[in-house]
């Protein structure tokens, strides 16, 4: 187990390092001159030059990168060009809605996808399996905003029972109002995410169902239910956990589209705004922050993977 953890930590650190270089390079090397963007098009070159000097943009890139990373490690992601607040502050304000939205969406996805995936695997080839797999295919072939629009059409426009945009915190509007505003976005994201989880659950269950040790379990006289929910589930769990980690991570970003559409003040909306405004520190900081969450979640998944699968816990590698 120890070796497994050390390997994981090393790989996480290198991934973060490459990630930071990529993001830094993205915004500094390829983008236009931020100072010029801030002062607008009619500023003359001397003003721009002065601003560049003041913001230290003329220093060698490596130096800028080292400063940026050392600050970032201490939690300071620099200041926004247009928001008169530090990036960290902007993120802190907006992490709440994003996490809530992601959490409920993932919950809906898991509650929906795993049981349906198991049913589809158990009844392979029958009507239930075909129906479930078809809907999963539908879910996979649809961008989240499309489903969002269709749900708005049905529940917002035709039935008019649910709000189609906006976000209410529990403090302001009370629990019921808070939930009413969350239903449409969370259901949208939940359905989209459940499509992927359902397909993976079904295929990992089918793989395990065809193994020799499940044939042995049947030869031991165990009930079909016991075989499915004890022997098969324990083995399929590790693959499903891995997918849950990845899907929660990508959910955090996928929510960006929904936050913009449903006008929810989350991190995703922040990034989309700052991209349109070319507010590079915010873009840099937010993407780094969300990617960090994504990596940490996957690290947690890999660690739990070790607990579930003894082969990792003891031998350090799945045979």
């Amino acid at each position, binding site marked *: 187990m120890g070796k497994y953890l050390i390997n994981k930590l090393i790989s996480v650190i290198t991934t*973060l390092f490459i990630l930071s270089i990529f993001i830094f390079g993205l915004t500094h090397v390829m983008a236009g001159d931020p100072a010029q963007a801030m002062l607008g098009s009619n500023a003359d070159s001397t003003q721009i030059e002065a601003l560049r000097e003041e913001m230290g943009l003329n220093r060698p890139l490596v130096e800028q990168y080292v400063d940026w990373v050392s600050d970032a490690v201490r939690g300071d992601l620099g200041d926004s060009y247009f928001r008169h607040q530090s990036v960290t502050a902007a993120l802190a304000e907006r992490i709440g809605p994003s996490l809530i939205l992601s959490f409920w969406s993932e919950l809906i996805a898991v509650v929906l996808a795993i049981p349906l995936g198991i049913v589809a695997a158990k009844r392979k080839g029958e009507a239930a399996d075909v129906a479930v797999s078809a809907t999963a295919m539908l879910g996979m072939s649809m*961008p989240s905003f499309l489903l969002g629009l269709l749900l708005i059409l049905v529940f917002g426009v035709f039935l008019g029972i649910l709000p189609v945009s906006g976000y209410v915190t529990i403090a302001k509007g009370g629990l019921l109002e808070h939930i009413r505003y969350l239903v449409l976005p969370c259901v949208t994201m939940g359905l989209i995410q459940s499509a992927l989880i359902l397909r993976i659950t079904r295929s990992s269950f089918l793989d395990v169902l065809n193994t020799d040790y499940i044939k042995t379990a049947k030869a031991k006289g165990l009930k079909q239910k016991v075989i499915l929910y004890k022997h098969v589930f324990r083995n399929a769990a590790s693959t499903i956990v891995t997918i849950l980690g990845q899907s929660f991570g990508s959910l955090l970003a996928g929510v960006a589209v929904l936050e913009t559409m449903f006008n929810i003040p989350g991190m995703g909306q922040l990034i989309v705004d700052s991209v349109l405004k070319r507010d590079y520190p915010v873009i840099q900081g937010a993407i780094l922050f969300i990617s960090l969450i994504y990596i940490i979640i996957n690290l947690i998944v890999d660690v739990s993977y070790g607990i579930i699968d003894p082969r990792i816990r003891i031998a350090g590698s799945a045979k």
Partner: protein
Amino acid sequence: MSSEKGNMDIAKDAIWENRKIKLRSFTKNKMAMFGLVLTVIMVLAAILAPLLTPYDPIAMETTNRFQAPSMAHLFGTDEFGRDILTRTVYGIRISLIIGAATAAITFVAGMILGLLAAYFTFLDNLIMRICEGMMSIPSILMGIALMSVLGTESKNVVIALSIVYTPVVARVARAAALTVKEMTYVEAIKSQGAGWMRILFKHIAPNTLSSVIVQATYIFATAIILEAALSFLGAGIPAPTPSMGNILNEAKQYIFNSWWLTLFPSIVMILLVMGINILGDGIRDVMDPTAN
């Protein structure tokens, strides 16, 4: 010994016969055929767009704004009086072009990176770490960031999507190549004096091809979705050129009174992407040796 000419005849009809078997196993697979038919319909619609509809997708005719679906305008018209069906068909064309381009680029780049990483262990760590690093940035954010840097043009969308999806294909290619590399026939050809080029490109690559083709088909579908999302956020194909994303982006504002602006393009888009995904599943089943 047999006459030389005799051998050549054997060669010709045998090769043709092998192709027939491959074709038959594809047509027998209902799923693959359904996906193919759906995709072909979409492609034809996109190519024959000018013949199908008399209207121009971009020219504005403010006289007949917000017309409900009618015989003249099957999908109705938008806020500038443009025919939605025409714009949708042209939108499919853009989506297909971008999807295909992205799939092709990521297929080639992914194959090369994957094969190199699998065959040369010293490259493996380097390539895989970079891929992991890039893949830890969620695709939509990466897309937005790249577009903001590159500027919103169709050409850049393809570049952005290719950067996003190449690591995904590379990882699949590497995994497939690693399993093939352990096969006895690779060791056999090595024991017969083959150089690394022959081993890699004549023996390992062809046997990695099938799983990477399947992955490229899925990337084709996902690229269309991501392009639509980017355009929806205003970071993709700029208006007025019609793309599935910006059609729906504009439709969003008028969803309350002209619902048809949203409904019909949505259905067409779902069919488009579903067709390609089902085709991907179909190819996977045909290619999968355990299937036949």
